[in-house]
C-alpha cells in the first residue's frame, strides 16, 4: 500500500436506479470540482469518462448506489458502490462488446459494451469487487504524476 497523502477534497453523490433524467449529473459535477481544484485537463477528461461510465452502470443496471469522489495530493479516486444485484462473472462483463442493456437503453446510445473497458483504460488502478445478491464496488484511481522521492 502506498502511504496516504492528505485529503484535499471529498464528495459523496447518491445515484438513483433507472433515473435517466438525472443520469450524467454526477460526472458533470465531478468534472466541475476537478476543474475548480486546478486539475490538469487530461486528468479532468479521464476522471469525467470514468465517472460517467460508472454512473451509467449504477443507473442502468443496479438497484441504486453512490459515488464518492476523493482527491488527494497525488491521486483522484472514484468509488462506486451499489445495492445489487451484483455481477456473477466480472471477466465476462468486462469484455468489450458484452452488454445486458435492454433495447430502450440501446436506442438511447447506451449498452455498447464499452463501459467497463472505458473505465479501465482511463484509470491507473482499477478494481471491481462484486457479490451476487449483495452489490458491486468499483475503485478507480487516477494518479496525478507526483514524482517519487
Amino acid at each position, binding site marked *: 500500500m502506498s502511504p496516504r497523502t492528505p485529503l484535499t477534497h471529498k464528495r459523496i453523490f447518491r445515484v438513483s436506479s433507472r433515473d435517466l433524467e438525472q443520469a*450524467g449529473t454526477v460526472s458533470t459535477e465531478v468534472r466541475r470540482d476537478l476543474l475548480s481544484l486546478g486539475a490538469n485537463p487530461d486528468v479532468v*477528461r479521464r476522471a*469525467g*469518462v470514468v465517472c*460517467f461510465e460508472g454512473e451509467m452502470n449504477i443507473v442502468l443496471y443496479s438497484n441504486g448506489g453512490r459515488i464518492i469522489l476523493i482527491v488527494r495530493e497525488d491521486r483522484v479516486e472514484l468509488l462506486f458502490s451499489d445495492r445489487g444485484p451484483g455481477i456473477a462473472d466480472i471477466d465476462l462483463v468486462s469484455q468489450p462488446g458484452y452488454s445486458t442493456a435492454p433495447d430502450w437503453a440501446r436506442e438511447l*446510445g447506451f449498452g*455498447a459494451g*464499452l463501459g467497463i473497458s472505458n473505465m479501465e483504460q482511463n484509470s491507473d488502478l482499477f478494481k471491481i469487487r462484486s457479490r451476487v445478491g449483495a452489490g458491486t464496488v468499483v475503485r478507480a484511481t487516477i494518479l496525478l504524476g507526483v514524482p517519487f522521492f
Partner: protein
Amino acid sequence: MNTKTVVAKVALEVLVAVDLAREVRGGYCSDLLSDVLAHAKSGDLWITHQRHLNVIAVGKLRDVAGVVFARGLCPSQDVISRAVAERMNLFLSTEPAFEVAGRLHRALHP
C-alpha cells in the same frame, strides 16, 4: 478552421452558439455514447442522431467543439437549455449524417 466558418460551409442551423470562435479540428460520427467517450477528440464536431440530455454531458466530457444533430432531429427545449448552461455549441442539419460528415470533411480537408 473556426466554428463560425464551419457552420457556414456545412450549412448548419445554429441552435446554441456559445463559442463560434472555437477551432474545429475534425469530426466524429457515432450514436453510441461509450464509443464517443472512447474515441472522439477534443475539438471534434460530433455528428449524431441521439438528442437526449446525456448528449450534452458526453460532449462536454470529451470537450467537443459542438454537437450536430443530423436528419433534422431537433432536440427538446430542456436539452437546449442544458447546452446553454453547460456552454456547448449545438447545431442542426436537415441532411443525413453521411452528407453532414462529407461536407465537414471537404471543408476541413479541401
